[in-house]
């Protein structure tokens, strides 16, 4: 009877993993690839690990599997944010049909947020840049 539960969990996990792979291959843009893979891979591996935890049904193994799931859920968004920021600073191209880039012009060239600086700091930074590049 519990076999049906394992079968459902494993099937959904495998299919979600496949969806993530198709997404990273077919999406036209770096940012879309990032958004597909981080979500789908977390759910896919999480369901497979949940299936393993329920199959063995020992507190020791369950703790270990749940620790991995928790770690994946905590770290996947952080890694996705860091690589997305690095790609934006490295000027990864948007898709040609993208309508809106809300971050455009919000960062100066030293990768500091412009809105976080006061007017005085902004002026000083601009003067420094003007000194460096006459």
């Amino acid at each position, binding site marked *: 009877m519990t076999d049906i539960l394992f079968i459902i969990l494993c099937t959904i996990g495998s299919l979600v993993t496949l969806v993530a792979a198709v997404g990273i291959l077919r999406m036209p843009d770096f940012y879309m690839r990032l958004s597909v893979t981080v979500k789908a891979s977390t759910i896919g591996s999480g369901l497979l690990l949940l299936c393993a935890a329920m199959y063995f049904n020992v507190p020791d193994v369950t703790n270990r599997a749940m620790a*991995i799931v928790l770690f994946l859920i905590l770290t996947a968004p952080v890694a996705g944010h860091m*690589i997305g920021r690095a790609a934006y600073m490295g000027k990864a191209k948007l898709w040609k049909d993208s309508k809106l880039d809300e971050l455009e012009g919000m960062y100066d060239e030293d990768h500091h947020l412009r809105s976080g600086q006061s007017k005085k700091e902004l002026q000083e930074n601009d003067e420094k840049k003007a000194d460096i590049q006459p």
Partner: protein
Amino acid sequence: MTLYYLLYFFALPVNCIAMILVFIRIYKGPTVFDRIVALDLLITMGIGTIAIYSIITKQPLFLDVAMILALIGFLSTVAFSYYLEKRKDND
């Protein structure tokens, strides 16, 4: 018994095909960022595959490997993105 058939003939092949698709993206990837994201996804898929394999062989010890793999994957992605942000010209 059907669980083993499912794992052998559905779950493992599907994971294998997914890994091949990710490898195609690593080969094609226009920028270095695509390759890093694909590598991260590959490591996460490896964790899922290890979970399936531990069910097939009834060896829960393999889950330790998955835990270390998750740690290394997160660390490598963060290190790559940290140093790529410092770099001046990206291809």
